[in-house]
């Protein structure tokens, strides 16, 4: 039985995919009589099934040696591309989280999408999304993971583009796809390069390979950078971070998934690729730089947003930035713990946000206020989620960071400074959102705001409890991924003061957020010029998007117009010119055939005369010429 459950573990993504396929009769409109509900129930049922199967397997594998399932996908010549699945406590644990959050999100969607006519289509996409995520958790092959990351890109495209008739959605879906695609293709190049260097494309073999295969510093640096690019796009890191912000145009249940586990999927692949990054200091430095820039930049962007979803989603990038730093430093266990605590708490926050949006039918925080007394469960969820993300109360992230700065890992002052900054800024931002949405006088749209129906409340409360329990994981984490047990780095002043200082920074953030002046209504922009400049700078994401418009986007469109012009007027123009010359020549010559014999005789005579002269000149006067 044990072996059966483990050997059939690949059914778990299969269930989700089956769910997606089963919805087809409803989403394509073949079955209309029953309404779209059965499609949703199928999906929920199959997600429950995959949760049960996954949980059983997780319990069985606990404490056991990892196993592998190998599928031979493509064999050509001496190349054997395999798709390998790893069955280990880590991979099944990751799968467990995916099934849990996805189950809750789908239940949540039952309420959130209640009135949407395309409910069945939504569920088929969610099922597809879930299947890809589950398979990434299991995958031990870079090729398979790459393919699945592309599936996630596709799902994001579909889910963001779900309401395809809305004007902002049109560009948001496309931008999400293109941004991630750039990262994915670079990852693909890394994959091709790895394969040509004879590396097996299995993650578990990469560690051995990276120790034995000699690569020039330049090659290993480039290889590392290419492999980083994929997760950079997926985890919404600078410079590929803007899609996440735009993707908030999609339905909220998908945002729950995207901000918690989808971004984590990218980081999960990054963690598995970590041995390659150790080959070159450039690639590990790049990870740290990308992570730092994103963590600082996006946590600043978050505090100036007006849209409630965007305000929260920017902090996702910031936390994933911290994960990038951890991977760059080789502290993969910390990275995985951060992912875990972040995923749970962020999913909870997005559920809370979803409840608010579905009740208020608005995403503009300036038009909200006073919701705390009307929506207690939602308020509770928001507070628990926020507190669990920020290092201030002993909840999820607090314990993860406690492990980080406990002295077991090398934590340099600059990293500590970044942690302090992100923590304080995030605390400030969350407090600001909390005040805008839940405190203050109720406004026009928040006056009649009942708590959400059970389909949304139940998953939200469940996840609140789960978030409160999540500290168990960092507390009992047994450092699965690190190859060597980290040594204590001594008992320096920094380490002793680290945690109190972090809590203090969170407290400062909250106090600042609680005391700063808020603007509501339509006039959310400050009147003071300098202040307004700063807020606009942050609210418009440091104008990165405009910068891209002016550089990459315009370069591509100008180039394409140039080649089109070249194609039409030079390449084709030359051909047409030849054709035209032939036609004109023919047209011109036709007037010479007048039908009068005198003119023909004249032509012949002139011709012969010319020839004669030429011949004479050739023979006699050659020397004169």
């Amino acid at each position, binding site marked *: 039985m044990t072996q059966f459950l483990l050997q059939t573990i690949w059914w778990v993504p299969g269930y989700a995919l089956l769910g997606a396929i089963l919805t087809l009769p409803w989403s394509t409109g073949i079955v209309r009589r029953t309404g779209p509900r059965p499609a949703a129930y199928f999906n929920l049922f199959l997600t429950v099934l995959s949760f049960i199967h996954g949980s059983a397997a997780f319990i069985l594998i606990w404490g056991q040696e990892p196993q592998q399932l190998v599928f031979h996908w493509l064999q050509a010549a001496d190349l054997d591309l395999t798709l390998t699945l790893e069955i280990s406590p880590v991979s099944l644990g990751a799968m467990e989280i995916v099934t849990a959050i996805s189950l809750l999100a789908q239940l949540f969607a039952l309420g959130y999408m209640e009135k949407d006519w395309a409910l069945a289509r939504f569920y088929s996409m969610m099922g597809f999304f879930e299947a890809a995520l589950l398979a990434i958790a299991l995958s031990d092959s870079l090729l398979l993971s790459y393919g699945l990351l592309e599936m996630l890109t596709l799902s994001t495209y579909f889910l963001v583009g779900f309401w395809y008739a809305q004007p902002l959605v049109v560009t948001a879906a496309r931008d999400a796809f293109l941004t991630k*695609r750039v990262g994915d293709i*670079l990852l693909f190049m890394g994959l091709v390069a790895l394969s040509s260097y004879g590396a097996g494309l299995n993650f578990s073999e990469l560690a051995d390979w990276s120790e034995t295969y000699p690569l020039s510093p330049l090659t290993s640096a480039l290889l590392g950078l290419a492999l980083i690019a994929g997760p950079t796009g997926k985890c919404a890191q600078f410079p590929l971070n803007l899609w996440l912000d735009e993707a908030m145009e999609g339905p909220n249940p998908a945002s729950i998934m995207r901000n918690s586990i989808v971004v984590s999927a990218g980081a999960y692949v990054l963690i598995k690729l970590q041995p390659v990054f150790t080959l070159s200091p450039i690639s590990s430095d790049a990870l740290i730089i990308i992570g730092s820039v994103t963590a600082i930049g996006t946590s600043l962007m978050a505090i100036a947003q007006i849209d409630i979803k965007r305000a929260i989603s920017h902090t996702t990038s910031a936390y994933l930035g911290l994960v990038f730093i951890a991977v760059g430093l080789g502290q993969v266990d910390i990275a995985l713990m951060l992912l875990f605590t972040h995923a749970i708490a962020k999913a909870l926050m997005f559920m809370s946000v979803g409840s608010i949006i579905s009740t208020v039918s608005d995403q503009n925080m300036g038009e909200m206020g006073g919701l705390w007394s009307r929506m207690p469960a939602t308020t509770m969820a928001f507070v628990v989620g926020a507190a669990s993300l920020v290092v201030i109360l002993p909840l999820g992230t607090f314990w993860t960071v406690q492990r980080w700065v406990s002295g077991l890992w090398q934590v340099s002052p600059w990293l500590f400074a970044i942690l302090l900054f992100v923590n304080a800024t995030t605390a400030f931002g969350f407090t600001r959102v909390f005040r805008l949405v839940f405190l203050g006088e109720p406004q026009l749209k928040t006056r009649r705001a009942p708590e959400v129906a059970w389909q949304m409340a139940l998953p939200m409360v469940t996840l609140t409890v789960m978030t409160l329990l999540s500290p168990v994981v960092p507390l009992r984490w047994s450092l699965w991924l690190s190859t060597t047990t980290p040594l204590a780095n001594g008992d320096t002043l920094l380490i002793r003061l680290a945690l109190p200082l972090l809590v203090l920074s969170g407290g400062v953030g909250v106090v600042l957020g609680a005391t700063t002046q808020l603007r509501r209504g339509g006039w959310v922009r400050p009147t003071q010029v300098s202040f307004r400049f700063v807020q606009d700078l942050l609210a418009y994401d440091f104008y990165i998007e405009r910068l891209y418009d002016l550089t990459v986007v315009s370069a591509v469109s100008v180039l*394409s117009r140039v080649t089109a012009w070249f194609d039409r007027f030079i390449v084709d123009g030359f051909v047409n010119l030849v054709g035209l010359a032939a036609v004109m020549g023919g047209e011109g010559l036709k007037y010479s055939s007048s039908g009068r014999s005198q003119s023909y005789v004249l032509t012949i005579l002139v011709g012969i005369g010319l020839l004669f002269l030429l011949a004479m000149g050739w023979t006699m006067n050659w020397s004169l010429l």
Partner: protein
Amino acid sequence: MMSTQFPWLTVLFLFPLLAVLPIPFLPDKEGKTVRSYALGAGLLEFALIIYAFWKDYDLQSSGFQLVESYAWVPQIGLNWSLAVDGLSMPLVLLTGLITTLAILASWKISHKPRLFYALMLVMYSAQIGVFVAQDILMFFFMWELELVPVYLLIATWGGDRRLYAATKFILYTAVGSVFILIAGLAMAFYGDTLTLNLHELGLKDYSLGFEVLMYAAFLVAFGVKLPIFPLHTWLPDAHSEAPAPVSMILAGVMLKMAGYALIRFNIELLPNAHLYFAPVLAILGVVNIIYASLTAFAQTNLKRRLAYSSIAHMGFVLIGIASFTELGVGGAVLQMVSHGLIAATLFFLTGVAYERTHTLAMDRMGGMAKQMPTVFALFTAGSLASLALPGMSGFVGELTIFLGITTSDAYSTSFKAVVVLLAAVGVILSPIYLLSMLRQVFYGEENVELKFSLSDAKPREAFIALCLLVPIIGIGIYPKLVTQTYDVKTTQVAAQARTALPLIAERPIHFTQPHFVAPSVIGAEAKELVSSVLD
């Protein structure tokens, strides 16, 4: 030589041609009998193809199979000689599938239906003829036979600029095919023996200069058809002016004839010259990919955009052909099959959209997803396949080509890196133009200027698209479906191409500067060339 088995290939070639004969006499007032008749003939032919290969084709053999050879015009040594191998077999299957579906797609043709379907069947026949002919003169006949119906189909049933497009098409390809004839005959008369058989031509020992000259001639001929930059400009015109079913065949089958011929003639018959030209092919492939992708992005006509995307995708075939590896050559064949399916899907769906909107200008469409959700979904699936999404056939083709070129030992690392990176730029450009196409046509608010009622896809139309999409996804998930049909053969082709490689090591030619290779060869050995030609 008489084979003991049933002459399948002759039957496959002649059946559609003979099926044309009764068409003028069919009792048909409304054009409905003739279309059913043509579809029946197409289906029967497709069934025959499948049955013949299923029964008598051995996947494990790399040699020619179902061989037939009869003296046709013995005075000049012309034989009726047919055979298939791993290179042509998948393409014959592709031809059968796409042409049959194209007949089904032309259900709504009301203008001179008899002639239309007759021409479609002739084209069916000629395409199969091109893939199975084993005699160089016969190949040339088939190649020419194929042009006539295409010309008439474009010139009669095409769009507003159909005459311009059709004339351009026929001039380009006819000029190109002159080179086939000249080069083919030159090879036939080379040396002591006169032979037209492709296999025997491959056994002849040509001087290098002669090979280079022949290679260049074939390259021009097939480069027009593939097409290779800068010989491509007939294609956007022809594809965009042709009626949708004809575009399906043009993009789905006809471009593959050139890819097939490049492998069959240029690699198999002239491996030594291939060594010199391969880097040029790789560079031309990259140019095709990037140039056509960029140009595609600037097109506002739906079909022109897809036409340029076809050019870009054929660039990958060139890179695969230039790779000298089993993976690369196999990838080239796979890419041809896959692009055949994908391009046919997209052109077909474009036709579906055109029937409803009566325009191909993307800026005059918009918001069509609301009224045509099925077409939207199918179009999206086709576009995703075209941009090489994993799990679809385009990805497998491009993956194997990339792996093929990077594992090739014929080029320096820097050359390979540049080729791969630039080709990757093309892979990033393809979603840019495809997604912007989807955005302009389907997303957003409905365009009020579209006064026509946009009914969603009919079951027949959805069926055609699904017939193409199912193999696309099937190959993407389980590539062995197709790779096993050609694997043995492409391995042999790559091995043959590589046998010439050690020779090159002794020559003072540096592959690190591949772009200088071809010109310098021609310049340095001009004397030899001239003398060999005069011989």
